């Protein structure tokens, strides 16, 4: 009875105590969570910006703490619940970066600032979501996977519906929440099946993978796929992407910017964790010939690229267009996964860093334009090159980067992903991967078509509206700084690559 557990207790407690020192960034976030709530509760009237400040500070703090762990060798924490390794630290740093930008974005977003419910709650949700993101990329246990994923999801629903006075946002939030819930139910059910088959939740235990060999493919195949649906939902991979355009369009722009980056990146983190146990098996040929994991991923990636890029062509709403394009980008990033090695991950991580910079900058600029002129449609951007010359030039750089052309870091990122994919092709010779690569290349060309509709309208077309010189807001300066980063990183990619 109880006696069985006694040895475990001390071991487990020791592990827990030892783990604490590796958990500082998350502590910082947890502390930040509490402080934001407190500051919102007690000081919001006097210092309305205090929650933002606290959130910024604790995120920064968490970032610094994470940075210190970059050189840390991998270590399992809390009895194998989570793992702290180089990759997860990198992801955490990206989250910190995005969160900082998000806080600044919200700070300078008119709608959110003028909301009569204040922004304090948003920041507390952010802190929790960020904790969830960190845990997502560290999870090594199905329970933690589910838990952290739900945490991020629920937090995202709340963020989307944050401005409850707007019908669009409510609609977006509802779609997002219900769609997400269905997907996470699928995931949960898949986990339950896998648990039933393997008897373990621990992704890295030998027992976990055993179900692959003890049960027929007909059983584990669906189970695995159902589990991955939850992740695919977060990644908005085709065909789990339907929510994305609607939600991106409906949500407040800073939230859209956040959603299109952080949870997606975390989704990749978790995908890497989830697929890791199956990797040796798929190489050693247990993979069913018809149902190969790489095959499924490749088809998904191809479908995502096609739907994302071709869908974007017809969009007129800028945010919606960016939503579709982000579907395409996800498909593209998935390409980097195929090599499934440290090098491939490096390519993906680099891509993600650049992607988050590009996306954040793009949404900031779009938001700036929307706030100043109320224009949301690409067609309405006519002649904006005159009014917002600097901002629109920045936008062009961002779009060039999104397309993946030199001289922007987007090119280096795309280049690295292609490298990983071609290396995967080199080692496998799979025609599917070659197709994937070709589709990736073609989608680059297609993407140019819709991305460049913005500069096309902004610079090439004249509008009848009078030219008004707008004063640049702090937000546009932030976006210009991001643009500078895009240019900086193509000349000095080592500034990032050196840490990978």
């Amino acid at each position, binding site marked *: 009875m109880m006696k069985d557990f006694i040895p475990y207790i001390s071991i487990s407690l020791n592990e827990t105590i030892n783990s604490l020192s590796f958990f500082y960034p998350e502590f910082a976030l947890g502390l930040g969570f509490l402080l934001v709530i407190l500051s919102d509760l007690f000081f919001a009237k006097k210092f309305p910006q205090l929650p933002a400040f606290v959130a910024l500070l604790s995120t920064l703090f968490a970032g610094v703490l994470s940075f210190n762990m970059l050189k840390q060798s991998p270590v399992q924490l809390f009895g194998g619940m989570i793992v702290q390794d180089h990759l997860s630290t990198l992801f955490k740093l990206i989250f910190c970066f995005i969160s900082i930008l998000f806080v600044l974005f919200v700070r300078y977003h008119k709608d959110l600032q003028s909301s009569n419910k204040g922004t304090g709650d948003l920041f507390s949700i952010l802190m929790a979501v960020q904790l969830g993101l960190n845990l997502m990329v560290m999870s090594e246990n199905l329970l933690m996977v589910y838990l952290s994923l739900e945490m991020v999801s629920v937090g995202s629903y709340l963020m989307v519906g944050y401005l409850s006075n707007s019908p669009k946002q409510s609609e977006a939030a509802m779609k997002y*929440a219900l769609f997400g819930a269905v997907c996470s139910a699928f995931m949960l059910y898949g986990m339950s099946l896998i648990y039933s088959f393997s008897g373990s939740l621990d992704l890295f235990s030998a027992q976990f993978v055993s179900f692959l060999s003890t049960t027929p493919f007909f059983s584990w195949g669906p189970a695995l796929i159902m589990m991955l649906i939850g992740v695919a939902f977060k990644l908005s991979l085709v065909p789990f992407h339907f929510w994305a355009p609607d939600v991106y369009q409906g949500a407040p722009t800073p939230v859209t910017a956040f959603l299109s980056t952080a949870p997606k990146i975390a989704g990749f983190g978790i995908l890497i964790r989830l697929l890791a146990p199956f990797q040796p098996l798929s190489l050693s040929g247990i993979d069913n010939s018809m149902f190969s994991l790489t095959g499924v991923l490749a088809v998904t990636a191809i479908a995502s690229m096609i739907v994302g890029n071709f869908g974007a062509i017809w969009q007129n709403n800028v945010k919606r267009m960016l939503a579709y394009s982000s579907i395409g980008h996800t498909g593209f990033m998935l390409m980097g996964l195929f090599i499934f090695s440290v090098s491939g991950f490096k390519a993906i991580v680099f891509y993600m860093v650049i992607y988050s910079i590009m996306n954040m900058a793009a949404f900031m600029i779009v938001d700036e334009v929307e706030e100043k002129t109320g224009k949301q449609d690409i067609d309405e951007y006519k002649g904006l090159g005159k009014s917002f010359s600097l901002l629109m030039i920045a936008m062009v750089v961002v779009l060039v980067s999104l397309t993946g052309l030199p001289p922007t870091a987007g090119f280096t990122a795309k280049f690295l992903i292609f490298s990983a994919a071609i290396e995967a092709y080199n080692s496998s010779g799979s025609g599917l991967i070659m197709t994937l690569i070709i589709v990736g290349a073609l989608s680059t060309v297609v993407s140019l078509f819709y991305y460049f509709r913005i500069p096309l309208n902004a610079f090439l077309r004249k509008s009848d509206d009078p030219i008004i010189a707008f004063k640049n807001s702090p937000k546009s300066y932030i976006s210009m700084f991001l643009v500078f980063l895009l240019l900086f990183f193509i000349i000095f990619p080592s500034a990032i690559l050196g840490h990978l």
Partner: protein
Amino acid sequence: MIPLSHFMIISAALFCIGLFAVLTKRNAIQILIGIEFMINAAILNFVAAGRFDRVAGGGQMFALFAIVLAAAGVAVALAIILNVYKHFRTINPDKIDTLKN
């Protein structure tokens, strides 16, 4: 002792019933109920399999957490649905389609 497979087949049926509700009901709350069925089907699986996992206790612990998370999820979802009702005067998801291509 009831064999594990029986639990699982029942849970599969429950899952599908829930799924049907999600796909066909014209009311957000009923959809939510369908989702709860799906989650509970999973929980049933966990609990049934957890019986054989005494040391790690994974199944039961997972079920516990899942119940809690589901409840919290329902709370958030309902809050959102109420917001939607406030704006659209309906909670039929079919009629809430201002965001589309």
